[in-house]
């Protein structure tokens, strides 16, 4: 099978959210001596990008996004060893490590899940801690995995103060500058971002990815 057909199969598997097909197509491509970096950039990332676009256009919904995330993960497990072997020491590692969580007392997860899925699809290594996560645990996890970005979500107005608490604790521990702290949720806006001293927010998942890109690259 020509290289472009392998790549096309990978793209389609990601778009269709077929984890087994994505892994198999990736393996076939590697067996045919396709460069792992080509698999990553011209296969997996292109597929992920298309999934994001379809979601934004309202053609895809949350399940398709989650399935695409699974397909990407399955394919990455196959391609990662070859990628590391061939490009060790070069700039092929994940763009940044991200910890995402819905803050303590809030149990809403859909928005956070979408952002986590889209960041994963965009090449970030995301540790999604779930909902109702104590701020101390979020900070501990960020320290443990060497994260650069902390994404906090809260739908409830009365849970939003915990976002400020996290930033204050980072300051008190002298580690505020280590992290980009992004906040999101239905009631979160720029005024709130400035009020609590966060680094940014976004109005939807696609914008969140752009904001992370911008801040990580700065």
């Amino acid at each position, binding site marked *: 099978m020509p290289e472009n057909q392998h790549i096309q199969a990978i793209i389609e598997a990601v778009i269709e959210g077929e984890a087994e097909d994505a892994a198999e197509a990736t393996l076939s491509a590697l067996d045919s001596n396709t460069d792992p970096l080509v698999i990553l950039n011209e296969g997996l990332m292109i597929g992920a990008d298309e999934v994001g676009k379809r979601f934004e256009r309202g053609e895809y919904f949350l399940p398709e996004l989650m399935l695409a995330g699974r397909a990407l993960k399955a394919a990455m497990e196959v391609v990662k060893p070859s990628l590391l072997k061939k490009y060790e020491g070069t700039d092929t590692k994940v763009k940044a490590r991200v910890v995402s969580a819905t803050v303590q007392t809030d149990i809403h997860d859909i928005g956070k899940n979408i952002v986590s899925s889209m960041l994963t699809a965009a090449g970030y290594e995301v540790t999604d801690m779930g909902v109702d996560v104590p701020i101390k645990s979020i900070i501990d996890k960020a320290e443990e995995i060497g994260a650069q970005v902390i994404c906090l979500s809260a739908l409830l107005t*009365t849970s939003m103060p915990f976002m400020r608490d996290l930033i204050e604790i980072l300051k008190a521990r002298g580690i505020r500058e280590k992290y980009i702290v992004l906040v999101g949720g239905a009631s979160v806006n720029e005024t709130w971002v400035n009020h609590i001293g966060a680094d940014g927010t976004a109005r939807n998942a696609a914008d969140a990815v752009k904001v992370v890109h911008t801040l990580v690259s700065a």
Partner: protein
Amino acid sequence: MLNYLEILDRANTGPYLAEENWDLEKVAMTTKKLVKKYKLEWNKEELVTDDASLSEAIYNAGYELAVTLGSYSRTTERVIEISQDEIDGGIRNMPQNVVMGEGKDARTLYARHLNDERAPLFFGGSPGTPVPERFFLANVMSYMQEPLIDLATCGTLVEVDGREVRTGNPIEIVSTRRELHYMRQGLKRVGRAGMGMLAAQSSVSELGDLAAAHPDYLRPCDSHLVPMLNELKMDHRNISRAVNSLEYGMVNASLPCVIVGGLGGGPTGSAVVNVASYLIANITCLADYHILHPIHMRHIATSTRDVLWVINATGQAFARHAPTIIVADIYPKSGAGTKELLYETAANAIVNAVSGNHLEGCGSADGNAPNCSGLEARLMAEVALATHRMKMSLKDANDYVLKLLPKYEHVFTQDGNPGKPFDEVYDLQKLQPLDFWQKMYEEVKTELKEMGLKV
């Protein structure tokens, strides 16, 4: 009826399943299969359908989803298995009449049928909207004083005595009790002390809810929310709310806010999940009635085409096949002081009135800011009552909604159309709309009359 202790036992002993697998492999995949199996499709030009076979298919798909999946405990990460017999028992036991409030102000919520001769009832208030303490009382009174409003609800207090309210913090107890204090005070001041309430909206965790179960605050003749988690899930915190009502006697309003575009996929799958949610909530929420509040994945509002379709589909499915008490939240995108809010409210009111639902509203400006007032609730009731009086057919209802949509669909942008806060649209002393807001209301009402609505 399934004993509640049995539900708790099953939450502790049911099969273990990672939450992500429940979401994706159980809810999303099963719903997708059922949408295909029942050949469900939606039409963005037919938001109120008169296709009885579609309604039947949606009900049957939702029933099959509930029987296939049961529920899930996020606390224990276990499936709460529920048998078909138990689902059927829940359907048989769905209350057909629930008396709320007391004395001359009492009202009987009832399970509406399609083309029901009885008019829908109206809850007035902006459910769950953050409202500052300085005008909380005036705001709730602006709804309570409206003669067409039957029952009261309210926003959420986000600060008390100048202090920020935090979920799960002891101050949540203070804020919930303060909210109930204002609600009871407001009802007395408008001369409707016995009016029933859906309140304790400031209780975001179970803490305030438990603290408000006292005759001075939330009476046994009032109702409170027992939320489900997206989708078909419960946790011990929300189960505690239901358990707390067992002996005290409060009316349980189940609140499954199905996300349209979420795990159920598009409008068809979301309607299926909404039907299943009520059948599960009969058991896990001990529901006396159900809140209908699908949330648009991007726009939140209930006035988008796809959410209006889900509201109609869910309401009709039950009104035709298993009547139960459904109270629909109206959450327009636009806020007070805008004409679009009134158009959105009118579209929601028509859809709900013909779909077998009672109405609650309005959570203006997506319920995101205190940009809400009693005036839009007045229009909500007027339009729904006109729809009822005219014995409007499903087809005519659809035609009216299609005429209203172009008047407000431009608000579905990232910036929305938030309008103005309550204290900038009402005279807080006289509790009447300011002239400009009253004028907008009258102009929109004239337009509605010109369209043929007998408001």
